[in-house]
């Protein structure tokens, strides 16, 4: 069997074991309800952070409008379940597809911009999405979309997270992912090497948006409601902070970033201002002393462990 397949299966086994363990602890009520909620939050934010990382870290396109796509997923899926009475899975898929479609339509013209300009444009688009939702009374307008059933549970959140991680990991380790990385590294050289840079920027943006939509669906079905204030650019900054903390371009870094910041949030829930100040100081200090984030663009992987135990060194070349 191939090494890649082997490590894939090993990671899958690890993931499922972790799932079984946590689900067991939840069922046995050993994890208190407050922390159960936070475990689900972690799963949702891992989907958000890794999908934003695909756009920002892997493809190097600085987007700070992720909350907009999350909002699309949250509201579209709620329309499916509340207004149309469709099953949750259909709602999640619709949420993801709607966000992807919008990501595609927005990405096509916007991704001609670069750097600061792209950042500010995506921020603006995210806000436009939110303000538009705010003005649609069909979905509750400014008072929010009420009465959304709580379908999200640990199983949904964890399995979708696992799916996202495998999807993005495999994407990044293919010729398509390499094309995206090439754009990040040097757009002119990528184009000169035959990479259709527009296509791959839009593709990464669309995939990122799709997963943000999926996360949005999980999000709105976790809190009984969807409210426009959940999707301001502060939400986008939150996700960005997690990605940057872990290291732009590092998927495992994003996971660590999510766990660390969700942990801080959970502990500081009673002191929201201090929580934000810690966030802010963390960002500043991190940029001053370790601008590449905790892990840079490197991955922590099972291969490191297998190498420690004298495993193959062949796989190491597969870096990201």
């Amino acid at each position, binding site marked *: 069997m*191939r090494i*890649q*397949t082997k490590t*894939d299966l090993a990671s899958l086994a690890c993931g499922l074991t972790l799932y079984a363990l946590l689900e067991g602890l939840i069922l046995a009520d050993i994890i208190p309800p407050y922390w159960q909620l936070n475990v689900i939050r972690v799963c949702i934010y891992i989907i958000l952070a890794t999908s934003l990382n695909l756009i920002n870290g892997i493809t190097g396109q600085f987007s700070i409008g992720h909350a907009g796509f999350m909002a699309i997923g949250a509201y579209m899926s709620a329309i499916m379940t509340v207004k149309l009475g469709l099953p949750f899975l259909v709602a999640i898929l619709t949420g993801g597809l709607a966000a992807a479609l919008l990501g595609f339509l927005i990405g096509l013209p916007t991704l001609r911009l670069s750097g600061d300009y792209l950042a500010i444009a995506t921020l603006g688009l995210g806000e436009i999405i939110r303000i538009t939702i705010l003005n649609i009374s069909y979905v509750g307008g400014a008072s929010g979309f009420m009465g959304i059933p709580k379908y999200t549970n640990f199983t949904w959140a964890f399995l979708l997270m696992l799916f996202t991680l*495998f*999807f993005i990991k*495999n*994407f990044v380790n*293919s*010729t*398509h*992912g*390499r*094309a995206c*990385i*090439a754009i990040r*590294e*040097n757009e*002119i*050289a*990528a*184009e*000169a*090497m*035959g*990479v*259709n*840079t527009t296509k791959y920027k839009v*593709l990464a943006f669309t995939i990122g948006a799709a997963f943000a939509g999926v996360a949005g669906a999980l999000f709105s079905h976790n809190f009984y409601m969807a409210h426009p204030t959940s999707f301001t650019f502060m939400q986008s900054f939150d996700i960005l902070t997690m990605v940057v903390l872990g290291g732009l371009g590092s998927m495992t870094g994003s996971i660590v970033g999510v766990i660390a910041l969700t942990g801080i949030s959970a502990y500081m829930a009673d002191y929201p201002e201090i929580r934000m100040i810690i966030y802010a100081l963390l960002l500043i200090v991190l940029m001053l002393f370790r601008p590449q984030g905790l892990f840079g*663009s490197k991955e922590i992987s099972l291969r490191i462990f297998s190498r420690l135990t004298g495993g193959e060194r062949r796989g*190491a*070349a597969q*870096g990201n």
Partner: protein
Amino acid sequence: MALLKVTKLSKIFGGLKAVSDFNTIIAPGELIGLIGPNGAGKTTVFNLLTGVYAPTEGRIEFDGAGLAGLKPYQITQRGIARTFQNIRLFSELSVLDNVKIAYHFHVRYGLAEAVLRIGRYFREEDEIEQKALTLLDIFQLAHRRDEIARNLPYGEQRRLEIARALAAQPRLLLLDEPAAGMNPQETQQLMSMIRWIRQEFNLTILLIEHDMSLVMGVCERIYVLDYGSVIAQGTPAQIRSNPRVVEAYLGEEVH
């Protein structure tokens, strides 16, 4: 049958004629040099050929088909690859990955196959890796395969750029100052390598160079550009004795 035919090519930047009335016909297998003082418009010619700039006037035909309106990546896919004067490697990636990326448009497996790792995914990935390693071997970079490109010494970075351009499997290779920053010994090696890859990969090569020993040593025909216009063309011997060239290079030695 010409591989590349350029007629009356001009490029004007806000009133400044960077290239004016550039004509050439290059047959398959030729090795052509493009020389001239700094700012003569040599790199602009490359940028026009590769679609980075749209010509103000003129026509570029590659293998019988016009290139007008094509994006750089489409021109690369037609069979023109290049290196850059100011090296443009994927500097944070490994040497191997740098080369692998250039195989991109030869890969046929789709998004679903990549994500699910089915179908052609593994077969084609293996193929790319093998081909990339073979190229690295040729350029004596195989032992560096896992090194980050940025950490290579200058001469090796230049070689890697050529290797990467070859991975795109071009028929016409454009080299922009391949010997810049190399010592005489490295330049000698580069010369024989250029000759050898032309043979081995069935290439036509157009190169810009300041190092006269290299240009005179390997090129069969030379164009001399000054202020955007061709002031002389011919064999190395003809160029060496051309008074206009000597004048344009006043102060610079023409060996």
